[in-house]
């Protein structure tokens, strides 16, 4: 009897262990189930939109591709149904938004690629879709509203004239990209006919969006970064800096020349920056701590991924602890092997203009069904601080001085306040050829805008890029 009781006791006791194991497993399964539902409900759109996802083609059989709108609901792309029931994708603005809006037939690029899944998904009313299924008709896909602005795009495009290059215009307080121009361009309406020709054209590269994927030597615009590093290393005495420029700076056997060999004479830090004195910045750079310099570059997102959801090229800075004096000097003035995209330069400028806080640049604003009911909104997103508010404030003063007394005086205006940095980046052994750069911002009341410009082989930034910036700023602030 006793033995039986003992046995019984053992059995109930031991069932507690089995119960524990059961609870443990059920808990694991619940976690897995929650993750699964989270993936399907929220996380999966990213995966679906991935260009490697071949399943997007399946959707095209059931849905008429939606429209792409500008921020003011002008049509950038729409699908027209021909009398013989075939579809034609039409781009009313032709060349103007070539790489930015892209195309969807010969592969996909631009917003056509970025928003492919949204354009091929129909959130029309259930009743209508039901009717479509019954009648064997395609449903009407959702429309995508972008952040793009036709007038800004037109002004930038015209101002660039015949030059190759890129312009990017961003609202630094939201990250909205108002304009993205890349030249040479093409007419996406004729993509099927011109495809064979343009996709083999690697020399001109009309398919490449130079604003986001074009890597250029930064030239003197890179001095913004060198300046930030100097200020970081000389928090209290950077204002005491002086240098006597004779038109060139020699260290060991390496010579750094000022643009066209001009001697700037006695300059302080602010004048060095405003006049873009290469010799002075070479002098500054040899005193910098290379490790720290690399860290500052990393803070500013060099040599790493950018927090944007569209394709881009990664910028590169060669500096590290073992860099030679020559490499450091070349890098400090944006020459050598340093490479940067206009997008990246615009992001750094945008952080400076926004008190150090980088708002993530984006092209998509909202997705709506064809009845204009909201399907999805892309809210503005902060990436975080690229620099402290104090540092941003100092850089703002320096950049405003470039407009007041430096290489960008053309931008002085009675309505708005402009700031920036010019650059003339040498890209070949022939010193007379250089890319014209400008990156800067302007503000009036609470409106603020960042513009970054590169003109390939045009000459000096002050002469060629700054006038474009002026036209863009004028256009943006004209209504007020």
């Amino acid at each position, binding site marked *: 009897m006793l033995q039986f009781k003992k*046995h019984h006791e053992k*059995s109930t*006791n*031991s*069932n507690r*262990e*089995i*119960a524990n*194991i*059961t609870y443990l*497993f*059920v808990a*694991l*399964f619940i*976690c*897995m*189930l929650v*993750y*699964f*539902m989270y*993936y*399907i*409900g929220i*996380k*999966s*759109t990213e*995966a*679906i939109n*991935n260009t*490697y*996802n*071949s*399943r*997007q083609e*399946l*959707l095209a059989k059931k849905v008429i591709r939606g429209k792409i709108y500008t921020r003011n609901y002008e049509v950038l792309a729409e699908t027209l149904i021909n009398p013989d029931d075939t579809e034609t994708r039409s781009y009313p603005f032709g060349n103007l938004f070539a790489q930015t809006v892209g195309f969807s037939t010969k592969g996909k690029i631009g917003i056509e690629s970025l928003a492919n899944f949204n354009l091929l998904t129909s959130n029309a009313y259930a009743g209508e879709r039901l009717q479509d*299924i*019954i009648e*064997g008709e395609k449903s009407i896909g959702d429309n995508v509203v972008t952040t793009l602005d036709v007038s800004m795009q037109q002004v930038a495009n015209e101002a660039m004239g015949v030059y190759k290059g890129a312009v990017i215009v961003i609202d630094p307080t939201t990250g909205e990209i108002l304009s993205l121009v890349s030249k040479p361009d093409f007419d996406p309406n004729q993509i099927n006919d011109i495809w064979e020709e343009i996709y083999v054209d690697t020399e001109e590269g009309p398919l490449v969006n130079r604003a986001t994927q074009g890597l250029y030597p930064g030239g003197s615009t890179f001095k913004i970064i060198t300046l930030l590093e100097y200020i970081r290393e000389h928090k209290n005495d950077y204002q005491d800096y002086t240098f006597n420029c004779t038109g060139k700076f020699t260290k060991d056997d390496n010579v750094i020349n000022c643009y066209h060999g001009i001697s700037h004479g006695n300059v302080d830090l602010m004048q060095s920056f405003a006049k873009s004195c290469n010799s002075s910045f070479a002098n500054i750079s040899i005193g910098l701590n290379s490790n720290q310099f690399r860290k500052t570059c990393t803070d500013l997102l060099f040599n790493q991924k950018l927090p944007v959801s569209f394709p881009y090229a990664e910028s590169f800075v060669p500096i590290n602890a073992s860099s030679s004096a020559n490499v450091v000097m070349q890098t400090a003035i944006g020459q050598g092997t340093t490479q940067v995209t206009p997008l990246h330069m615009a992001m750094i400028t945008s952080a400076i203009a926004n008190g150090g806080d980088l708002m993530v640049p984006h092209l998509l604003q909202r997705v709506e069904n064809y009845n204009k009911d909201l399907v999805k909104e892309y809210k503005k997103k902060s990436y975080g601080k690229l620099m402290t508010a104090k540092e941003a404030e100092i850089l703002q003063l320096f950049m405003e001085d470039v407009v007041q007394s430096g290489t960008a005086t053309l931008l002085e205006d009675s309505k708005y306040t402009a700031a920036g940095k010019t650059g003339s980046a040498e890209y070949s052994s022939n010193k007379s050829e250089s890319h014209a750069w400008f990156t800067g911002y302007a503000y009036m009341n609470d409106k603020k805008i960042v513009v970054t410009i590169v003109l390939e082989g045009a000459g000096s930034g002050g002469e060629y890029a700054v006038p474009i910036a002026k036209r863009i700023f004028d256009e943006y602030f004209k209504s007020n």
Partner: protein
Amino acid sequence: MANIIVEFSKYAIIIFMAFYTLECFIVFRYHSEEDRNGIYIRQNVLMFLIHFISFVVLCLVTKNSMLILLYAVQQLSLFATIVLYRVIYPRANRLLINNMCLLMTISFIILTRLSYEQSVKQFKIVIVSIIITMFIPYLVKKIKIISLFPLVYGFLGIASLLIVMILGKVINGSKLSYSIGSFSFQPSEFVKILFVFSVAGLLSKSTELKQVILVTIMAALHILILVFSKDLGSALIFFVAYVIMLYVASREWIYLLAGFISGSLASIVGYQLFGHVRTRVQAWKDPWRTIEAAGYQVTQSLFAIGTGGWFGMGLAQGTPDKIPVVVSDFIFSAISEELGGIFAACLILICVSCFVMFMNISMRIEDEFYRLIAVGLATIYGFQVFLTIGGVIKFIPLTGVTLPLVSYGGTSILTTHIVFAVIQGLYISESRKLSTRAKNDSD
């Protein structure tokens, strides 16, 4: 017309599946099998409806008239399984029978959609498995000597794993199987059952330290051979089964803790030691970065599940054939893509309901040996489901194991049928004991 049927069928299938799943859990509110009768019959009807609608769609889309025949034979065999169990084993657990049949139904549907030939081949194996395992519930407790030779099972297991390691052919970078003629055989599946019997036999005799050490050595040998055969999924399953059986037998939580710690340490060592482990872990952490290499499988699976969404693309409307090894390791992704995320979530819940029922049954068993067998087999089943589904949805790293009863693979099917049959046998003899006792009491 076909359009409309395809489109509406997917919602119908999801609704039927959801009701079936609901019934799986409502069952637990009733205590007597008589009260549950209605639920079981409703479940059978729902299961047959899902099977029927799916094959109508598949016939319409593929226009393969052979499917009608295949459907008829499958339907008949499912019906026969249910009826035969009712006749031969009136005390059998009907929820388990239903779940087993539903999982087979899902397997029939998705395999036929993926590959008609493989589906037919699989179906033949299913029939043979059902016939063979039909005797197991009767035999389990009749053969008393089964508990006498635990060490023999252990040696048999180790020996056959060793043979595979040495002779086996390389599949997907891991040595898993060897072929006799055209019949490819995956012993690690069978060895799982031998292993459970062996550990149960040893631990039911004693849980003193000496015995525990003996069991540990034996388990370690199994696991090490599997690790060196690069079959990490199976190695993990054996390990977890061993730890949990040891914990239940000894009732010492310290063993569970020790198992957890040594398991974690072993994972770290394995990560440092083996390149293929690192690849898997990296592919899990960020598959998008290696989308054309190590991350390919998972990302294809995620594309399938994501594009399918809650309601799925509809049967034969997606492209699950783009996922590598879709019929075995990634069958869950194909199901989720075409039948929808809701359906797939229900499938997970049904597997959970099987597992909980296994554990429930093990609690009712008084004999330590059989109790441990039930716990061991339940653990193997539950953990394998967790590994395979968790892997393909990127919840955990991929381990390359199959979804029991659903995935393509002869050995896996037969083994799972054996597991279900053994547990069914234990349940039947326990309920017989209970009713005799009740009768004696009332007398």
